């Protein structure tokens, strides 16, 4: 297709988008959903398997209490009702990523239903309705061999590792979100960001999108104002927060281009490509959804004791939104300042830096200043920049103790980011400490005065501003490692002038 894509502004001027998000979260339990195999990453192929997760005849699954509890806590944090009684269901499909030829999931009786999550988009509150939160199991990993690039097309055979088969998964599904208009991509991103923060605060998952412990499918459709909702597509393989936003946007543009040309949208799965930012067609959904769900006979129903649910609810941690509001007050920040911290993804980093022993002002200065600048330059997430909150606190400690000037601290930070170790170590290794030895400083000052008699005379004569040149000379001999203010005071003192 070589048609020119319409501009985003034209798309949203003409069409109204409806989006929906399905998020899969790998729970951080010790063991799998229905057997005692460990869930840790990195094992050699097929070393985390047993008769249950291999689907061997005669084996019986038993649900993991911790996984059920985590799902209930997620449901409660998302303001859902918890089912008094629900069942697991078999989702039947023949594909070797599940050795049983079915996946145990939940179908018409999810554990949690009808909730909501409040998010903020550009400072405006948006309530996202949650349809359901249910339990299921992850699938194994297939490796396609014989093809050119390890892709499924052209492969002659597949090799399967079942270490991940049976890992507890929770699926969180929103209700359709209409009315977001041009903001739809931002709303999608804000929702996934907030959901990730909620899940992290609950401690139920490590929620790393790049590693697949948080995965997102994005549903998108367009309709003309006043008309029925359009046919939706489901975009998979969306592996970062930024991609969530890009996937919605590019799919809106693509659909608008199809519709504008008089075409129809096919209900299908599309794959998002991180490199190009667009989506390509996957399988067609219409012929693929015959999963023949039925209640899982091998697992008895779950009927959470209301007392247990009440206890779990009472023990929920402070949720991110309230937490942020409290931090904003504690840090004494305006809405705008707080927003810039949020936009930079720096809340937790700043919080941890303060916890490591520095002031809110200093922590904010480093993360939003030098480190944000570097993150922008390299395109990295702030959290992955290479400096830890502890290191930033230590760096500020050295500044506070007068061992580093701000300028020297920035140099040290560069080496911290480069992975050279702690600020104190780098300061020592690279001999970057402020020259505070008065003897050495005085000698440098005297040298500067002797070398610039005319300037020295001016200063003596009352032209205090001329001392700047002498300060510069001293800074040069100390390779910038002296505190300019101290140097200035010392010069004036030696010249017998009041500062």
């Amino acid at each position: 297709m070589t048609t020119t894509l319409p501009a985003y502004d034209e798309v949203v001027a003409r069409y109204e988008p409806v989006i929906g998000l399905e998020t899969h979260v790998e729970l951080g339990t010790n063991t799998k959903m229905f057997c005692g195999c460990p869930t840790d990453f990195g094992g050699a192929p097929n070393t985390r398997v047993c008769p249950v997760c291999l689907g061997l005849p005669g084996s019986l699954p038993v649900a993991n209490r911790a996984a059920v509890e985590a799902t209930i806590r997620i449901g409660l944090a998302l303001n859902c009702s918890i089912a008094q009684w629900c069942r697991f269901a078999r989702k039947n499909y023949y594909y070797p990523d599940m050795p049983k030829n079915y996946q145990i999931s939940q179908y018409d009786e999810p554990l949690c239903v009808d909730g909501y999550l409040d998010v903020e988009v550009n400072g405006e509150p948006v309530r996202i309705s949650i349809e359901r939160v249910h339990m299921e199991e992850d699938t194994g990993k297939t490796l396609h061999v014989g093809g050119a690039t390890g892709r499924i097309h052209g492969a002659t055979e597949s090799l399967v590792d079942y270490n991940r088969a049976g890992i507890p998964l929770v699926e969180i599904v929103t209700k359709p979100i209409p009315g977001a208009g041009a903001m739809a991509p931002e709303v999608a991103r804000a929702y996934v960001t907030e959901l990730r923060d909620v899940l992290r605060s609950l401690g139920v998952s490590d929620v790393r999108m790049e590693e697949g412990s948080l995965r997102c499918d994005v549903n998108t459709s367009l309709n003309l104002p006043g008309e029925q909702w359009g046919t939706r597509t489901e975009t998979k393989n969306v592996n970062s927060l930024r991609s969530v936003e890009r996937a919605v946007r590019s799919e809106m543009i693509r659909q608008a281009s199809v519709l504008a040309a008089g075409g129809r949208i096919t209900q299908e799965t599309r794959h998002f490509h991180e490199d190009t930012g667009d989506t390509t067609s996957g399988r067609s959904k219409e012929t693929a959804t015959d999963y023949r769900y039925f209640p899982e006979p091998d697992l008895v129903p779950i009927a959470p004791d209301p007392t247990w649910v009440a206890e779990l609810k009472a023990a929920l941690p402070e949720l991110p939104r309230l937490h942020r509001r409290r931090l904003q007050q504690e840090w004494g920040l305006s809405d705008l300042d707080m927003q810039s911290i949020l936009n930079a993804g720096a809340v937790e980093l700043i919080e941890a830096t303060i916890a490591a022993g520095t002031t809110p002002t200093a922590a904010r200065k480093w993360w939003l200043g030098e480190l944000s600048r570097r993150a922008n330059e390299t395109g990295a997430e702030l959290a992955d920049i290479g400096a830890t909150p502890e290191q930033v606190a230590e760096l500020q400690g050295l500044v506070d103790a007068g061992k580093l000037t701000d300028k020297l601290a920035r140099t040290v930070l560069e080496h911290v980011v480069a992975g050279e170790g702690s600020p104190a170590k780098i300061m020592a290794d690279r001999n970057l400490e402020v020259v505070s030895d008065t003897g050495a400083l005085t000698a440098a000052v005297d040298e500067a005065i002797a070398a610039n008699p005319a300037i020295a005379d001016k200063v003596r004569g009352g032209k205090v501003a001329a001392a700047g040149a002498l300060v510069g000379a001293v800074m040069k001999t100390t390779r910038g490692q002296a505190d300019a203010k101290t140097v200035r005071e010392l010069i004036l003192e030696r010249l017998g002038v009041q500062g």
Partner: protein
Amino acid sequence: MAAISREEVAHLARLSRLAVTEEELATLAGQLDVILQAVAQVGEVTAADIPPTSHSVPLTNVLRDDVVASCLTPEEALSGAPDAAEQRFRVPRILDEDVAS
């Protein structure tokens, strides 16, 4: 009217990855029809006050503590596999097939 059509049986066979001949299709459709008719007959006498039964035992909340148990060795795991390579189960190529989400 038959409770299940030939096309539905063919569709189910395809979903189950069963290679069924035209002849078998006719036979199976007839047999499945008898079974479904019998079930439908039972359905007629079902009283409205009896809830559908999915489990034969009246149990709920059979849960397991989140404690690691022993696994099979890869050799044991692969011992029943028709084929294996690189410590993985080897299966025929998969093309254009459905994947659970």
